[in-house]
């Protein structure tokens, strides 16, 4: 600690000795009323609260839709491919019979 710091501490110590001017610590009349008049209205839930509230159900709904769509896709891929009308064969068979 420098010489200045030590001397500053001494000065600050002397300053602390000065008694604070007597002041009443109780709230002045009407203070609480003035504060409550300025008190912010209780706002609705904040945007981030709304996000958090709706995030989980939204994710669950999206996941359910994804599962249903995937199932439909798999089912569609396993289904037998509709046979195309074998035009050539039919023609050949008709010709053969003739």
């Amino acid at each position, binding site marked *: 600690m420098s010489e200045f710091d030590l001397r*500053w501490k001494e000065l600050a110590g002397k*300053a602390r*000795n000065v008694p604070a001017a007597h*002041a009443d610590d109780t709230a002045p009349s009407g203070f609480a009323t003035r504060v409550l008049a300025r008190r*912010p209205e209780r706002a609705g839930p904040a945007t981030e609260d709304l996000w958090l509230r709706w995030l989980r159900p939204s994710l669950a709904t999206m996941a359910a839709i994804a599962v249903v769509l995937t199932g439909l896709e798999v089912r569609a891929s396993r289904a037998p491919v509709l046979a195309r009308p074998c035009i050539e064969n039919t023609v050949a068979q008709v010709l053969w019979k003739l």
Partner: protein
Amino acid sequence: MTADGHDVAQWLPGARAGEDKASRALVEALYPQVIRIVRSHRPVRLAEEDLAQDIFVKLFGRLDRYEEQDGVPFEHWVSRLAVRTCLDALRAERRRPELRCSDLAEEDNRWLEYLLTETAAVPDGPDFSAAELVERMLAQLSAEDRLVIRLLDLEQKSVAEISQLTGWSRPAVKVRAFRARHRLRKVAQGFQEGMKL
């Protein structure tokens, strides 16, 4: 949980729900704690009641954010809010004009000489002249420097307490105090140079 003997906890749920009776009781209970902080740290030109009102309005606006499970007692949370609001007010205040040597009383000059001259003895003058010089010197510092010196040297709070009140880390408090004292020295030298002119 008490504020000057009042049990604050009983009014918290009501105040959070917006009940007038509980809110009034909370204001009455916390007022002494808040006004003491305001008196120590308010800008000179701002009335203490106005600043105290600002602190309580902020308090009600943020009451939902306070959670007991954070481990911070409600009174500490209020003190921190009060100190931060005072700091914002101090920042908003314009730096006070440079002091002229003619503004200093003879007693103040003796203390100034004591500060800057290693061989000078402690002046015999009254303590209020020391307090006056301290206030005049602090008025030349930035809001943050003024706050840290006031808390550390005048209110004799520990580094840990200041860290809790301001939200600054402990090393940051120490560094800021070191730099603030360095600036105080410059201020004192500036006063002395003014005297010589």
